[in-house]
């Protein structure tokens, strides 16, 4: 059940990434799949994070035009490390979560761009501003996603409770 939920979340992130990028300006710079990987890693631990990173990265690589495995490796590493951070530290407030998402995006970019540059497959110039912008965007989306997932079930229950009180 959990596996199915993770696969669905990755598929939804990919669908959103490829669809929303056409309609909403600015979403083209976000990596929603990475946001899902970090979210899963923080909530489920390093092993699930690692496996989710591997799966999501390989699927994303297969749909892009680059080398299959480079994005997969970057996301595997990020998933594992985010999972370790999630188990070793308390990452329950928006600011620490923002920090983790931000650093995860920086690490992902470093591995991804580093490998492509090392293998002389692609030249990225000086992408500091773009990477920083993507990190901030991913972090903002990640924090909002966490808040929504945590608040929505509570909101539904509060609404039900309020309705039952009115009936009484």
């Amino acid at each position, binding site marked *: 059940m959990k596996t199915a939920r993770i696969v669905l979340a990755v598929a939804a992130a990919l669908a959103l*990434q490829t669809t929303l990028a056409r*309609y909403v300006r600015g979403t083209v*710079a976000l990596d929603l*799949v990475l946001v899902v990987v970090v979210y899963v890693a923080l909530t489920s631990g390093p092993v699930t994070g690692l496996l989710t990173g591997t799966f999501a990265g390989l699927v*994303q690589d297969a*749909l*892009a*035009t680059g080398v299959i495995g480079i994005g997969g490796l970057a996301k595997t590493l990020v998933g594992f490390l985010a999972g370790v951070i999630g188990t070793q530290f308390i990452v329950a407030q928006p600011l620490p979560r923002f920090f983790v998402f931000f650093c995860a995006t920086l690490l992902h970019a470093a591995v991804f761009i580093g490998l492509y540059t090392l293998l002389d497959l*692609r030249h990225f110039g000086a992408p500091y501003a*773009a990477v920083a912008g993507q990190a901030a965007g991913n972090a903002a989306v990640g924090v909002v996603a966490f808040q929504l997932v945590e608040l929505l079930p509570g909101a539904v229950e509060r609404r039900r409770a309020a309705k039952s009180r009115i009936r009484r």
Partner: protein
Amino acid sequence: MLGHILLISAQINSRSGVPVLEAVAFGVFAEVQRGISAGFSSVRSVWSGYAGLRHVKSENDALTRQLEVAQVALQQQRALADRTRNLERLLGLRDRSNLNTVAADIIAGGATPDFRTLTIDKGTRNGVRADMSVIAPAGVVGRVVMPGTRAAKVQLLIDRNAAAGALVERSRAQGVVTGGGDDRLRLDYVSEVADVMVGDLVVTSGIDGIYPKGYVIGQVESVEKSGGAYKKITVKPAVDFTSLEEVLVVLTPTPAREAADGSVE
């Protein structure tokens, strides 16, 4: 086990030269994207076409289509006039101005922000092949990199790995336009002594064998002296890649491609 299968599949190429894993993943996901795109389009169509400005919207759509057709015709005329000016004595050449094209809708954007690609709803079933150029009414969009049966992936000209032979329309200075991953292009290998000014129109030169000659790439935005043998030129693309909805895939092979194919045979 899964890792082995993935690694082996990644290294086996299909008939079209694309790895099997990529071809299968792209084919499957293209269908999902087609469905999602259709859903989005339906909702948008209902909202903007009926709930809002029913008559004005349909009239506007018709006029937009007319304008797009006129812009494509204008580009064809520009290419024709350009060719005529330069090759007016070679009237025996076959007229290549009437390009055979197929219209395609864009059904998805890129799966990762590091690769600037689009997915279109036409594939090998419609005659689309790898390395065919893709144009829009405003100018050049990119080239087909992965044709599936019912969909194809297009590498945009602004992708870091994209390039096209180009020339400055006014001075005929030649160079190579390359993408930078952002929304600007670079015009490389233009001699330091070449006559290039801000505002000059940059068009395809046709020497790459992919893009037909004379199609608009963009306008020169800045020209700097780099101190070396070449100028540092930035080009603003004519096409707004964020608002593309329909494109044309050029099915007619370019003269350079025909010559290359002929020499291979």
